[in-house]
């Protein structure tokens, strides 16, 4: 199967197989009107299978969201058909309004328009906890 190369835009490579649709929604790509290709289950030497997302437009991606979802993703910035930059991701220290606290006793469950804040408390295990109530994100 062939999907055309993009001229200018972003290629998200090394997405864990099956995770591309989740990423698509988290990054609000459904709200864009440019051409976007989601390629699932591509053969990969490193991962066995992987997903790829190609976005045919220059956009500012939220790298914190991407890093939280999968720090192994490679972000390729493409300009005039060439890869201008390869960005490696890492788990972000803080997350603002990316995920929500599910503890019904947390203040985030009752206060209006509150920012949902999470902090990386255990980088080795990738554990995030709600800044308000310290409940682990699931």
């Amino acid at each position, binding site marked *: 199967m062939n999907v055309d190369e993009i001229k200018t835009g972003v290629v998200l490579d090394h997405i864990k197989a099956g995770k591309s649709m989740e990423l698509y929604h988290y990054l609000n790509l459904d709200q864009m009107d440019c051409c976007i290709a989601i390629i699932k289950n591509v053969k990969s030497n490193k991962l066995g299978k992987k997903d790829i997302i190609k976005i045919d437009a220059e956009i500012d991606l939220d790298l914190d969201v991407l890093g939280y979802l999968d720090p192994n993703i490679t972000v390729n910035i493409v300009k005039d058909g060439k890869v201008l930059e390869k960005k490696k991701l890492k788990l972000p220290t803080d997350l603002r309004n990316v995920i929500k606290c599910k503890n019904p*006793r*947390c*203040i985030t469950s009752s206060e209006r328009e509150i920012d949902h804040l999470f902090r990386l408390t255990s980088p080795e295990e990738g554990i995030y906890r709600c800044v308000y*109530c*310290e409940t682990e994100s699931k």
Partner: protein
Amino acid sequence: MRHLIEIGDLSVEEIGELIETANDMIANPDYYNEICKGKKLATLFFEPSTRTRLSFEAAMLDLGGSVLGFSSAESSSTAKGESVTDTVRTVGCYVDIIAMRHPKEGAPLLASMSSEVPIINAGDGGHSHPTQTLTDLLTIKREKGRLDNLTIALCGDLMFGRTVHSLIAAMSCYENVKFILISPEELRIPDYIRVGILQKKKLEWVETDEMESVLGKADILYMTRVQRERFFNEADYLRLRDTFILDTKKMEYAKPDTIIMHPLPRVNEISPKVDSDERACYFKQVKYGKFIRMALIMKLLEVSK
């Protein structure tokens, strides 16, 4: 401007200074009785409390300051739907410092993000209760003479017992402190304490659901109440309420110099007959609570001696 949201907001040195000031207040109360003259404390209690609220109010009055506030969410604009943030910003226009209790975890932290006066967390849900911890530390220091080289047994509701969480966090900062965690399976300490403190700091600790066999090892027995208000299910509360009851018979297993502590209120987890045992320290804890809160108010208001 400083707030006290969790016990970790204070360094070990600062806690030592607060204990020193509180000890001086106990010895020389007259010296401090006008030190906060003209200052106002608001006690915003969105959840009922006897000891903590009155302790804060007595503390401020004994420093020569004045107090205002409310003692339930129903008697504040919260009943009209006002947010925590708006309530705190409003009250901050009238007072110099706020002590806040709220049933939702993290409410005092949220308040501190927009407040123009210092916020003291006077208990947020099952999460944290740092001024009770300061009270506990002052009690331990006065009654045991040290905060290190101690074995502390914590018994009862270790899951929702916020005083337990804050006390473990605080005691973990001192040398050679060991923990014995006594609770029913369903009320064991939450993971953020087990993993985030006990395992991370490589502390010595055991979990058990049996009281008698471990009592003889403890320098301190810290009893807690199974809290009805933390349960969504009344049947679970009733089933777990009577799991651990300290009576004169069980006291025979404890060492002659073990001290018995409890943040109070108690329901039935300590028999009133234990009160006359000289190892029972929970009413001394109440008394010490006022003095450590006086020291804290002075510190956060940056009032010097």
